[in-house]
């Protein structure tokens, strides 16, 4: 076997992989990035480049480098082999991009395509997508955390100190922050090390009792944790540096003084709003007289509260914020309807604009929205009601106001029926999460996670 001789073409590179000759250009090889084996092949000056690897798998990876897509013939390979081989060459990110990119998320074309099963008898208590955005998932079930990689083919399980994990967030690749409402402290768990607890963070509260974790959130620099003292009379949100995990500041400290119980409702959801540099915190409390709650917006650096929505009538059952849509969305606990308020117009008296039937708001003694979840992903808002999911999407209808200065779109939100009715199932939805081109759904007492995604175009492996 001899290399074909091509004169005056120094750009061409011939590579012998396991006995088969491949020819490509230096440009193609350098596309793979400086860390990968491909770019080292491009810069290598020796005339014969030989790799002792499988030629068939190499041809698929070279195809991906050339076109950015998977060739149709790759369906004859097991995706695990392609992943292992791409790791060897250092181009796994190309494979992730061609298979599970968040740009491929198509909200109107989601179907229940896969079910991830969990071992044991515990159903998922909370799920958290991986930080790299490739569509992997961490699932807390009972005292265990099972992590699925972006391909959902590989998994690993670690055992924690908690009897049940209630809050879970991946703060950097392979590092999880986990907390529980019945076990003190926020634990930073190293997955690479088989679930080794790197450190435990605690809130030094005034009553000198231990503190439990109610919610975890993060921005690109900070880790936020909502703590409640175990006597349940004071709570606070601690701000930690995301890399060093050292405490930076403490915000939103509340305590019960006297009989005003509403003064110390702990925050159970923390969301960072990147575009405004604000932290949204929310919490609610159900009592015989109704459900009360708060949604507060904090400027973390100056430790000032920018705005607060006090929820007394039709308090939220769940609330979320969308950077893309510049809006806060809630689902009302009484009406079960979705509401939104524009982030650019904070401060009005009754901020909520109802997206559904307004009249349901005044219905007393109804609890249509109990247990509903609301999450936003991309330009869409997903709201679970019972066993079904509603998809709300924005429609721009025109421009209002002075076109020269304060241009703002007039927009409406429209509800879409979601998925095939056969997919919706009969069991109540307990959790929603999004990552890559996937939506993850957990249901009550099911030891499995549904994966919803659009049918992959062209190639399926």
């Amino acid at each position, binding site marked *: *076997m001899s290399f074909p001789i091509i004169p005056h073409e120094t750009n061409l590179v011939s590579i012998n992989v*396991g*006995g088969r000759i491949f020819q490509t250009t230096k440009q193609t090889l350098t596309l793979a990035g400086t860390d990968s*084996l491909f770019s*080292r*092949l491009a810069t*290598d000056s*020796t005339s*014969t480049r*030989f*790799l*002792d*690897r*499988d030629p*068939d798998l190499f041809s698929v990876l070279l195809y991906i480098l050339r076109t950015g897509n998977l060739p149709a013939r790759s369906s*004859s*390979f*097991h*995706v*695990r*082999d392609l992943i*292992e081989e791409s790791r*060897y060459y250092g181009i796994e990110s190309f494979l992730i991009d061609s298979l599970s990119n968040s740009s491929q998320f198509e909200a109107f074309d989601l*179907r*229940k*395509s*896969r*079910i*991830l*099963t*969990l*071992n*044991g*008898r*515990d159903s998922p208590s909370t799920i958290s997508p991986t930080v790299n955005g490739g569509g992997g998932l961490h699932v807390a079930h*009972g*005292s*265990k955390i*099972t992590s*699925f990689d972006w391909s*959902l*083919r*590989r*998994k*690993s*399980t*670690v*055992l*924690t*100190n908690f*009897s*049940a994990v209630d809050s879970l967030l991946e703060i950097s690749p392979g590092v999880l922050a986990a907390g529980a409402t019945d076990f003190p402290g926020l634990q930073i768990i190293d997955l690479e*090390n*088989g*679930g*080794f*607890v*790197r450190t435990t963070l605690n809130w030094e509260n005034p009553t000198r009792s231990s503190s439990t974790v109610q919610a975890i959130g993060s921005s690109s620099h900070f880790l936020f944790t909502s703590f409640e003292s175990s006597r349940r009379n004071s709570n606070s949100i601690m701000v930690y540096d995301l890399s060093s995990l050292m405490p930076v500041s403490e915000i939103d400290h509340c305590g019960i003084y006297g009989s005003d119980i509403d003064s110390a409702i702990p925050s159970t959801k923390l969301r960072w709003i990147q575009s405004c540099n604000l932290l949204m915190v929310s919490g609610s409390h159900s009592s015989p007289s109704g459900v009360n709650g708060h949604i507060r917006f904090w400027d973390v650096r100056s430790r000032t509260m920018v705005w607060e929505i006090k929820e007394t009538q039709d308090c939220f059952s769940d609330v979320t914020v969308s950077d893309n849509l510049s809006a806060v969305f809630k689902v009302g606990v009484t009406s079960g309807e979705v509401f939104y308020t524009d982030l650019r117009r904070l401060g009005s008296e009754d901020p909520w604009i109802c997206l559904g039937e307004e009249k349901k708001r005044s219905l007393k003694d109804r609890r249509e929205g109990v247990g509903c979840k609301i999450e936003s992903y991309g330009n869409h808002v997903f709201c679970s009601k019972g066993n079904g999911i509603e998809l709300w999407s924005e429609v721009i209808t025109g421009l209002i106001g002075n076109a020269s200065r304060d241009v703002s779109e007039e927009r409406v939100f429209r509800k879409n029926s979601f998925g095939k009715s056969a997919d919706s199932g009969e069991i109540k939805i307990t959790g929603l999460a999004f990552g890559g081109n996937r939506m993850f759904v957990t249901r009550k007492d099911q*030891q499995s996670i549904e994966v919803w995604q659009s*049918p992959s175009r062209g190639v399926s492996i």
Partner: protein
Amino acid sequence: MVSDNGDRVKLNVGGEIFETNASTIQSTCPDSLLAALSNPTSHGSIPVFIDRDPEIFSVILNLLRTRTLPATSSGVFSKQELLDEALYYGVESLLRSAMLPPPLLGFDASLVSTITPAADGIPSAFTATAGDSSLWIAHGGQISVYDWSLSHSGTVRTHLNDITSICRVWDEAAAIGSGSASGLHFYDLSGGRYVGSTHWTDPEDPRIHKARVAAVADSTSGVFASFECLHRENSVLQIDKSTLQVAAVIGQQPGSSAKTTVPEKLRFVPTNGLLIGSAVQRGVFGCSGYIRIWDPRSSNIVWETNEPGSGRSSRFGDSLADMDVDVEDSILFKVCSKSGDLGMADLRKLGEDPWVYMSDENPGAWKSGDDGGYSVVHCYRKQVLAARGGALEVWSSVKEKTIGDQIRSESLYRRNFVDKEEDSERGMISKIEAGGDRLFVSREFMEGVEVWESSNFSGIISVE
């Protein structure tokens, strides 16, 4: 991996040319046929011709390159094909390490297969603890041997009609006992040959005859077997492995009460040379039984506990259901019959009340219904597997925790279910044993032995 020409080897397998580095082959399996054929100096520039299938060779070559089996191959080639081909090229050990399951984590294991012998499929006893990942199943009067890949490698018919205890005493030899016939019998399973028998007799006491074997344990110094006569007189015998003669009679007792019944579980601890036996009787009013430790060199009882009854430790109405020993860490485990709590005792510090109890912090999750109580306990690599009725649970220790620079050893154990609810409905678990990172479970009146493994791959079901 980019290398010069000198190290490279070309192989012509069935007409297809493969090229690899000689070091790839030499470093992974230097003594194989493949290594001999691929010596770059011996054949000049003409590729060596091997008259085998090229497609299956590409799998073998990838196994040498990556030390893992390509996932694609499992759908294309059968396990037996791969084994045959690996045997031909002499790379069986590499295939074996690539095919064996990852470390067993009881809290993350799933049922991968059920091994059912062809005839008399209900296993009466099995053993898997020899360390070479093989499984021996006694069913009816037969013993079926399954190798590390769990493929059937042979069945031996014994003279017994049923085998209730089996223990591996040499690489290929089993000591077997029956609940319906007297004596401990030795069989060479590779040749299918009867080796010999040992009976418990006493020339001075004519009542000692027709003793049947209740439990067997192996050690380097001999085989220990507990024998019970028809009138319940019982004892543990130490049997010399070379002569198959009784070397010592340990702890002879009348068997007239719960405290003196025959030990139905025997464990030998090699680190300190102690023999541990236990017996539990299950009655209407709960369990009663004992754990006893002998020093076989002196035949003395070193330590014992009777439940209910002796010691301050006995928890009222919550006596032991079964025990097992973590041989590596010298820890004795028992499971309480009623609460399901796990009791641990350090074998090096046994005293009046050595037990440290672990209970689940979330007892609401555990139904304490009347489902037969705990029956079987088995230790494997710092995990304690316990069967309660048809359900399978595991106690696993949580990783050590760092506080500052000090490493504090937190012996915190957590209880989890191994199985799912529908698994437990298949029947009462009669025996659990783990070996070679596999967990084997047999159920009463059910054919076959279940194989549970941990996996790095997710259980993904496509519903499109």
